[in-house]
């Protein structure tokens, strides 16, 4: 039992003390006429990063991604920031849950050289 506790504590400490690197600048997106601009972004693998979204539509939108694990409402004319990553190399989708057929985009994650 004592070993389990010690191991758990060590695990927790390792995780708390090793926060994900966040060196890169926030990625800026806008949504207008239910289209994201840009609708494709590239980020390096293994980094936590921010996406800042400006809503230039006249409707409230919901910026969401199952792959990146965020879901935030952004009112017309509003700006929101979501956190994402760290990610493995691959392609990840995001969308506006209120206009899922029109407003979609992807994040490509590349392995750093």
């Amino acid at each position, binding site marked *: 039992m004592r070993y389990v506790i010690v191991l758990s504590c060590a695990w927790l400490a390792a995780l708390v003390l090793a*926060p994900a690197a966040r060196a890169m600048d926030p990625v800026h997106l806008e949504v207008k006429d239910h289209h994201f601009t840009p609708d494709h972004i590239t980020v390096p693998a293994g980094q936590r990063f921010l996406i800042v979204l400006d809503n230039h539509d006249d409707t409230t939108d919901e910026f969401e991604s199952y792959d990146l694990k965020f879901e*935030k*409402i952004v009112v017309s004319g509003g700006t929101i920031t979501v956190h994402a990553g760290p990610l493995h190399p691959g392609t990840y989708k995001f969308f506006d*849950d209120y206009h*899922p057929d029109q407003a979609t985009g992807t994040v490509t994650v590349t392995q750093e050289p």
Partner: protein
Amino acid sequence: MLGSLLIVFREVMEAGLIVGIVLAATQGIPGRGRWVAGGIAAGVAGAAIVAVFAGSLSAALSGNGQDVFSATILCIAVLMLGWHTVWMTRHGREMAGEMKTLGAEVVSGERSLAAMSVVVAVAVLREGVEVVLFLYGIAVSTHSGPMAMLTGGALGIAAGAALSWLLYRGLIVIPLSRLFSVTGLLIAFLAAGMASQAAGLLAGDDLIPALGYEVWDTSWLLSDGSMIGRAAKALLGYSDRPMGVQVMTWAVTLAVMIIATRLVRRQPAARG
């Protein structure tokens, strides 16, 4: 129309599953219809109010307002589920045994119902905000066919409510002697799932340590985006790529709910 039906249905389903379980878990407690209906009404009213202030809520707390708000109401719901479980453990057997009104216990039954009413209100509020904002957006849009989309939305609400009712009817097929053990377990999982979602929201905004990202990836098996994935999230707190803090919160909450039930059950029948 089908598009808006699906969007609304998904949200209503998530709240509806919780309402269905609450209805089954309060089976036989006098006056529960009023409390559950009151919880739904309060949730809808709250959703409308939050929707009006959605812009300010988004901007609050350095842009983390929405998530902190959701996490807070989820934690309140978890506490209420815990309270109900302890009460039910004390009184469930008497109710199952006699199936008559509880007389002097009615007052404390009302308190448990108030707790469950809060849980229903939180569930409806949380999903309701999204439905209200979505339907409002359609209603004021100048684009073609708002009527068809609003009809779709209304049908989505009806379908979600129907699913909630089906879950309730399905659960109460279980004999009363076993029903409360089943709903007790469902509620323990519900509470664990809500606590883990709250942790996920806070860690997602870097407000608490994530304790590791993507502890596992089961998106190939059951994706968060699928209908079953969403139901599993609402009922169990499922995530296809959870953070460490979500797994830990889930396990701790579930353990506390189950151990608390055991401890209370071992005590001699208590008053109140």
